[in-house]
């Protein structure tokens, strides 16, 4: 595994990552942190994301804090967070200022639809790509895949609130893991 050399490198990496994330940053975070920079392994990425998920706040923002903190402590967390938010904030506020005219334009509406479809595909592909991280799960591959499928069904199809799914699938998973690890 590699690691960032400096706070600047951390800031730039997260800015670069955030700017590629249209409609969400998750897919890009996996591509950049795991595949390109190799700062995290597939397993570390999913583990970090699992923690980021249950804490309040956006998962990718929590992820940036955790990655920054891991390499450079508080200063790293701030650099990563600033990288994630500052340039994108300027862009989105610029768009907000220009929105009145943009929204009237069919070209913009059509382009947004195309970009939206691609970002849906990117997130799906990220999930599929990370599935092998479950292979070495101490609970056993079949159990782990079963729990992942249950989470997908409850959220994607039955539309349970996240807190309930955390309690049932997350709590259940932790209980099974506890018994296996003991």
């Amino acid at each position, binding site marked *: 595994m590699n690691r960032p050399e400096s706070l600047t490198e951390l800031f730039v990496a997260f800015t670069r990552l955030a700017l590629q994330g249209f409609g969400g940053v998750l897919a890009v975070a996996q591509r950049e942190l795991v595949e390109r920079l190799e700062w995290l392994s597939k397993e570390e990425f999913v583990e970090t994301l699992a923690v980021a998920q249950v804490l309040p706040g956006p998962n990718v923002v929590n992820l940036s804090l955790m990655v920054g903190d891991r390499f450079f402590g508080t200063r790293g967390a701030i650099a990563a967070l600033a990288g994630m938010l500052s340039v994108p904030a300027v862009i989105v506020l610029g768009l907000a200022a220009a929105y009145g005219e943009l929204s009237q334009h069919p070209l913009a509406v059509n382009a947004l639809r195309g970009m939206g479809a691609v970002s849906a*595909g990117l997130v799906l592909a990220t999930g599929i790509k990370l599935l092998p991280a479950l292979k070495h799960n101490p609970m056993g591959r079949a159990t782990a895949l079963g729990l992942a499928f249950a989470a997908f069904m409850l959220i994607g199809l039955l539309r349970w609130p996240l807190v309930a799914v955390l309690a049932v699938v997350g709590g259940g998973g932790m209980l099974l893991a506890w018994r296996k690890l003991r």
Partner: protein
Amino acid sequence: MTVPFDFGSLFLHFLVLSPMSIGGAITTVPEMHRFLVAQTGWLNETEFTTSIALAQAAPGPNILFVAVLGWNVAGLPGAATAMAGIMLPSTLLTLTATRWARANREHMAVRAFSVGMMPLTLGLIIATGWLLALPFLRADDHRLGTLALIAVTVLLTLKTRLSLVWMVLGGGVLGALGFV
């Protein structure tokens, strides 16, 4: 405006929502709507909805919709106030929890947590992709084109190392040209 605007209430509102935002600030949108539209009247219905749509279409984390809401209420100071409120508590909590977990990595509870939560996290990512794709599956026009585009994106992401940003821009161009 039914209630006169003040920065203190704006800050406090987002500050209180932050620790409740498990699963992202997007889960507290109904509460923001109640406060900003129904209770105070600082934003109207359209301003509220377009703020969120805009931030999701723009590059960067979706949390920036909070900045856009603040911007539409009170310009740049409003954006800064809302963001500070929503970020402060969750950031402090994340750092504290992460450090505790790292210091107690060998603790049974921490290991059971990271092993047991992994499947849920993966199921959640795939469900998110599914929910993002759903509106395209439901729409009557453009359905085939957008479905094909989603499928091609999944294949390209899995099989090639093509930069994701090219795929998103490519989708934008195909959309603008009327292919999807």
